[in-house]
């Protein structure tokens, strides 16, 4: 060993990691060479200096982030199962793999069923096949996890080289032997081998076994679907109780007074935040670092991600804790307070003060921020609106005392109105809700006869979860028995109360009871049908085809559930850090002169038997609410 090689052993010598032989060599070198001794001493000092570097305590948010992540994991995948033998992993492309696994499992299952139409006689040996079959039987998954089954099915598919070919009978085989042979072919059937009396029994058992897995697959798909997708699919609202809204964007809908309305917002964002302004969402790259450049903002283009003629979309993705700062930058005062709307999943907030409050609560991790007092402008708007309607003011200034039990934005939004996710699950009605529910019902009815704001902004379609109604096939009635117990209650439903009380912030209606009675006069109408009628009435009010087209296009924008291009990357980044909020600011342009003149309503009733629709005007609406 030469001198240089021996020098390389100095660090190991200092750490006591040398063998007896090597240590002796090094000690001999140190005894003979002063420079080696000096080097050894300096290396030791360096090592000690490293050990003496100041240490930093872990931030408290690590525990909080873990709790959020664990709860989210439980919502999606269920609790940690101690009986599971295989570790659960979060795959970066978990959703895609899960779907692929489900498809693979279904394909394998169908192959097995087809395969069993031909049952070779027992005693026939096929060395190329039987080991694989026994291997499949041995590797039959025990857990009821559909993803595990699908994964094992995929592995079996990979090992399989060729379908077994039927061979000539070597001799007479008994029925039991044939059943036993068929049972060996599939792991599912192996379990039924001792119970089945005929091949048809085997088939039916295996079929029922696969049908049992369908709910598992369905539940898995439900966990992946967005809130709007679930409602569009006709699922009851209680399917959203366990839904996580973390990765769904929030829509802030504004109606500009001038054609440059969106530019004002864009400039404010650029002036207040150091963000990326990208030309295409394809440029957005997944960033995993906190406070990193995920604060880009992207100005949507018509025809690219939405089809509205007169709407501008600005997508902003910012850290949650900067949301309050961001809200201050948006000049909401320049928009009519009645036209400011915040929509997230089934929750809708209206009015500048309510929207601002909701956004601040979303951005506040502690969840304890008190509601900002109404500004003079907000108060005046509120009072003016109340004066027109002649009713009392809803309690906008109440603080939220509810606990923020759930994770995600939906819990935060529920927290705003003083309800918790646990209250939803326990279906305990709020004490203040019935009054607000009446107000909102009246508000809904009043809107059926007119508009409460400028009709230049996007409209909500029947598909949009504007109110908490179970989305069903249009025209069908939903029996109360099919609804969740919460929804089955007409006015005391806490779920309806949660959304309705949100919508009722700032809303007043002295004639709520009258409207409600009118609604009850026609009990044959379902909530979905009433919503449909509202949309149809608004469409019939437009006399010009162009306006109708615009309206339909606007509705298609709202109904368009296509994700923003590049959303996959955003989702990936959000998986890395749940501290970011995606905010889509939709600024509807004011109507042009042509469209304004042609927007006079018609008095044609929506359908026979309905009362004639009154002409729409702002003054009429104001009088209606007096």
């Amino acid at each position, binding site marked *: 060993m030469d001198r240089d090689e021996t020098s*390389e*052993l*100095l*660090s*190991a010598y200092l*750490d006591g*990691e040398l063998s007896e032989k090597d240590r002796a060599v090094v000690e001999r070198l140190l005894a003979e060479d002063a420079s080696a001794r000096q080097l050894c*001493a*300096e*290396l030791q000092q*360096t*090592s000690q*200096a*490293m*050990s003496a*570097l100041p*240490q*930093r*305590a*872990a*931030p408290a*948010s*690590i*525990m909080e*982030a*873990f709790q959020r*992540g*664990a709860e989210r*994991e439980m919502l999606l995948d269920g*609790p*940690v*199962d*101690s009986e*599971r*033998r295989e*570790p*659960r*992993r*979060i795959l970066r492309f978990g959703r895609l793999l899960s779907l692929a696994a489900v498809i693979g499992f279904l394909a394998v299952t169908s192959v097995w069923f087809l395969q069993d139409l031909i049952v070779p006689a027992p005693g026939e040996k096929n060395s190329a096949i039987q080991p694989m079959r026994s291997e499949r039987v041995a590797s039959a998954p025990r857990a009821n996890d559909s993803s595990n089954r699908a994964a094992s099915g995929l592995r079996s598919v990979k090992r399989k080289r060729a379908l077994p070919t039927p061979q000539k009978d070597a001799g007479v085989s008994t029925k039991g032997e044939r059943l036993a042979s068929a049972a060996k072919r599939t792991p599912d059937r192996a379990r039924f081998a001792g119970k089945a009396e005929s091949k048809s029994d085997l088939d039916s058992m295996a079929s029922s076994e696969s049908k049992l897995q369908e709910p598992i697959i369905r539940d898995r798909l439900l966990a992946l679907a967005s809130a709007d997708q679930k409602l569009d699919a006709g699922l009851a609202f209680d399917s959203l109780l366990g839904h996580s809204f973390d990765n769904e964007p929030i829509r802030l809908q504004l109606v500009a007074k001038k054609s440059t309305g969106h530019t004002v917002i864009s400039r404010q964002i*650029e002036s207040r935040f*150091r*963000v*990326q*302004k*990208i*030309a295409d969402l394809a*440029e957005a*790259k*997944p*960033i*995993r*670092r*906190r*406070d*990193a*450049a995920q*604060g880009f903002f992207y100005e949507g283009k018509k025809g690219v991600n939405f089809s509205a003629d007169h709407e501008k979309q600005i997508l902003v993705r*910012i*850290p949650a804790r900067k949301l309050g700062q961001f809200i201050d930058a948006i000049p909401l005062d320049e928009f009519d307070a009645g036209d400011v709307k915040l929509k997230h999943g089934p929750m809708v907030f209206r009015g500048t003060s309510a929207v601002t409050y909701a956004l601040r609560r979303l951005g506040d991790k502690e969840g304890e921020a008190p509601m900002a007092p109404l500004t003079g402008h907000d108060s005046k708007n509120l009072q003016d609106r109340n004066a027109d309607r002649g009713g009392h003011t809803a309690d906008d200034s109440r603080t939220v005392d509810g606990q923020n039990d759930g994770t995600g934005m939906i819990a935060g939004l529920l927290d705003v109105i003083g309800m918790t996710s646990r209250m939803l699950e326990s279906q305990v009605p709020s004490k203040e809700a019935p009054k607000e529910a009446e107000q909102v019902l009246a508000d809904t009815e009043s809107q059926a006869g007119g508009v409460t704001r400028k009709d230049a902004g996007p409209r909500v379609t029947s598909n949009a979860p504007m109110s908490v109604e179970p989305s069903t096939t249009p025209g069908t009635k939903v029996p109360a028995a099919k609804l969740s117990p919460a929804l089955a209650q007409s006015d005391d439903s806490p779920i309806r109360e949660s959304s309705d009380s949100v919508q009722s912030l700032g809303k007043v209606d002295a004639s709520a009871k009258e409207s409600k009675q009118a609604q009850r006069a026609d009990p044959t109408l379902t909530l979905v049908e009433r919503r449909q009628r509202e949309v149809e009435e608004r469409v019939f009010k437009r006399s010009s085809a162009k306006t109708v087209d615009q309206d339909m296009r606007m509705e298609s924008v709202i109904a368009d559930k296509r994700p923003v291009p590049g959303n996959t990357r955003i989702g990936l980044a959000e998986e*890395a850090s749940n501290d970011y909020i995606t905010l889509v600011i939709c600024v509807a342009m004011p109507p042009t002169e042509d469209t304004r003149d042609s927007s006079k309503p018609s008095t044609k009733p929506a359908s026979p038997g309905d009362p004639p629709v009154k002409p729409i005007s702002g003054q009429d609406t104001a009088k209606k609410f007096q």
Partner: protein
Amino acid sequence: MSRPIRKEKPEPKLISRPIPLEDVELIEKVRNGDTDAFGGLIKKYQDRLFNAIWRFCGSADDAQDIVQEAFLKSYQGLAGFRLEAGFYTWIFRIAMNLALSHRRRERQNPSVSLTSQSLELSQGARLLSDRRSNGESDDAKERGGSGMQPRLVAALNELDDQHRAVVVLRDIESFDYQEIGEILEIPVGTVKSRLHRARMALRMAITPWLAAEKR
């Protein structure tokens, strides 16, 4: 000539120090459904893990993200965790792999921090420059100060990932060579050579201070 048989690389077993009984009890509780028990493990190891990853990454923010994710991954994979290996060694391995992956991605996708107050707008990829704001974060202050420690930290950050990992695992975490080899999946001989080279580089950076101490 016949082809050499390619042997599959065996999964390295984490042979570590005896696992504390407290950890065993907490792990069993978590496996039995007590999620809160995992919080005990987090409280016990988060400081040490955070500190090590922070020294490796050079950024407290990155370290926080990595540690969070490491705990979450370990929680999800706890069912498959074998008690023969120490929990801390196991989670440290997870965290180190995450940190190494993060460093690779950083080199490919540089990012811009939002903590800086200065405004700078540019188009497209020019915005994505890897420029850290100096003097505005604790990390920058530590690197920018005078004295041996800032210089040592700066020299540590200048090492490549492989050498930095070894020196952090040894001098900060006090893992032995075998444990380091298992965590990083490298032979013990490689650990020796990398550690020596890393210390030599750090020594060069702080030689003036070493000479002063000698006097």
